[in-house]
């Protein structure tokens, strides 16, 4: 018993537990939300505007829709879009970072320039522009979120690759006549994977926040979708009449989901750094 407790106090184990805990909840929310999508859309005018009670924990809205299932399926949608956009964004970052570091000065300054350019337009504005370019809707948000998140990770990966390039075994491989592509795949990529995955997970929360924001403004998912941004945007009209539950509870859940992703990312980063240390030792 004592040993188990001691083990739990080990930073490594604690990080692993936090990671599994966060991932499990997020996965559960995602699946539950997909499962209750039908209920989330069902209207029932016999139960309009109910405040939170035992039967409807999150209350119901003006069309008698159950806010708990609506929130769940909204979060589920957010998580799925967040995961997909963050993943694509991270891959873009990986490709941009690696090629900037390996293809020479010209590519490098092109990337720096591009990053500066993307950093220079306020992100919300860029999201609005891209959404307009795509005629709004799902593809607009998705492309937009991918477009505004790759920069900092690309910078990070570029730095890491630059460092790896100086390392002994890459130098040797180059002397032996390995092609740049082979070096990239065999020697550089494995080295940046920890950075990549940690960066990827830490992109999730931002992607989710931005999706909710753009949808809230009306440039993202359409109002037929039970998205969190849609729920909160609709709740605005009913705030003045005192229906606080429409905005408060879904909002808190959104913040909780973002915090859980943050927790997962930090735990993962901690785990990677432990592994790196043990390999070095």
């Amino acid at each position, binding site marked *: 018993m004592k040993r188990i407790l001691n083990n739990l106090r080990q930073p490594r184990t604690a990080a692993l537990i936090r990671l599994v805990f966060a991932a499990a909840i997020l996965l559960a929310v995602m699946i539950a939300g997909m499962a209750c999508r039908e209920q989330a859309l069902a209207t029932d005018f016999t139960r309009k505007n109910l405040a939170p009670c035992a039967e409807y924990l999150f209350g119901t809205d003006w069309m008698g829709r159950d806010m708990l299932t609506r929130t769940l399926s909204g979060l589920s949608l957010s998580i799925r879009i967040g995961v997909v956009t963050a993943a694509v964004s991270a891959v873009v970052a990986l490709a941009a970072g690696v090629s900037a570091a390996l293809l020479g000065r010209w590519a490098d300054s092109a990337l720096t320039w591009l990053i500066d350019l993307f950093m220079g337009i306020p992100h919300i504005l860029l999201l609005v522009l891209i959404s*307009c370019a795509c005629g709004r809707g799902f593809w607009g948000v998705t492309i937009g979120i991918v477009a505004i998140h790759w920069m900092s990770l690309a910078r990070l990966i570029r730095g890491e690759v630059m460092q790896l390039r100086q390392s002994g075994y890459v130098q040797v491989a180059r002397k032996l006549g390995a092609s740049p592509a082979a070096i990239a795949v065999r020697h550089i990529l494995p080295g940046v994977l920890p950075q990549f995955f940690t960066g990827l997970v830490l992109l999730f929360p931002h992607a989710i926040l931005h999706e909710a924001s753009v949808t*809230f403004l009306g440039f993202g998912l359409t109002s037929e979708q039970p998205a969190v941004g849609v729920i909160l945007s609709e709740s605005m009209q009913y705030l003045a009449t005192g229906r606080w539950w429409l905005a408060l509870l879904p909002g808190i859940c959104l913040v909780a989901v973002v915090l859980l992703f943050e927790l997962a990312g930090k735990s993962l980063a901690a785990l990677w750094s432990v592994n790196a240390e043990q390999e070095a030792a």
Partner: protein
Amino acid sequence: MAKRMARMAVRQLIRMLLLIFCASLAAFVLLSLSPIDPLQQNVGQAAMGSMSAEQIERLQAYWGVDTPSLERFAAWVSGMLQGDFGVSLLYRQPVLTVIGAKLANSLWLLVLAWVISGLLGFGLGVLAGATQGRWPDKLIRGWSMIIASTPAFWVALLLLMIFGVWLKLLPVGLSVPIGLEATAVTLADRLRHAILPALALSITGTASVCLHTRQKTIQALESDFVLFARARGESGKGILLRHVLRHVLLPAITLQFASLGELLGSSVLVEEVFSYPGLGQATVTAGLGGDLPLLLGITVICSAMVFGANFAADCLYGLVDPRIRKGAGRT
């Protein structure tokens, strides 16, 4: 020395102008791709009727399908350089006039929020760093984490619910009371209506500067020079004021300048919640209404502001940090 600094500044300035140009180009290309045709969208509506033939002609010159996009861009840029950003479709006024009026409203919010979030974030960051690992630090770190994970518009919604609906302390929206003549609006009215949006923006803005300042404070406190200052009998307060602040202030100010883009983005969300008639709300209206000239104009102005702020931060660093200012003096 001064010459070197000046040369650096000029290079930065040119780079900045090029970036603004590229940002405009990007925005132009994006909006040209848009399937939302401004003429189609507006011709069918009342907008068309109130437009002069001349305006329509000019619109067609900009957005006409028969003109190649490169030519359109050239026309737009040359107009822009002469201060003519085109005519807003929704407001039926020159874009620059609309932006000027909206920006004047937003400036209140932006400046207030920029200053408050900077001071608050800085103060909390130093406090957290100085009490690293103890409860004030834990509290501030937790708070910052939560703020960073909360969308700006929801903070605005919460404030609206608490102060506007429950406590009825502050007005729910708009920058002036409804139904008042513009001349009858007092400064106090304006302030009252700006408090909640400014508060929402300030709160969302604190997280990053706070966490960054905390990090820098800890770094400074763990430095050799602080250890030596302690060895010389300097007090904790003296060390914080004489040494740590000096090292933390400049990075914080730089970060605050660099986060202007984020502030502008949040202001779009917050103004939308409070129906505050500023630049942010105009952005949403323009985007939803297909008012492409206005949206383009806003993009150019906003990125010019962001790049300008970054440029200012660079210059500030050069002027204040002796290691850069006197860098050339090193033998």
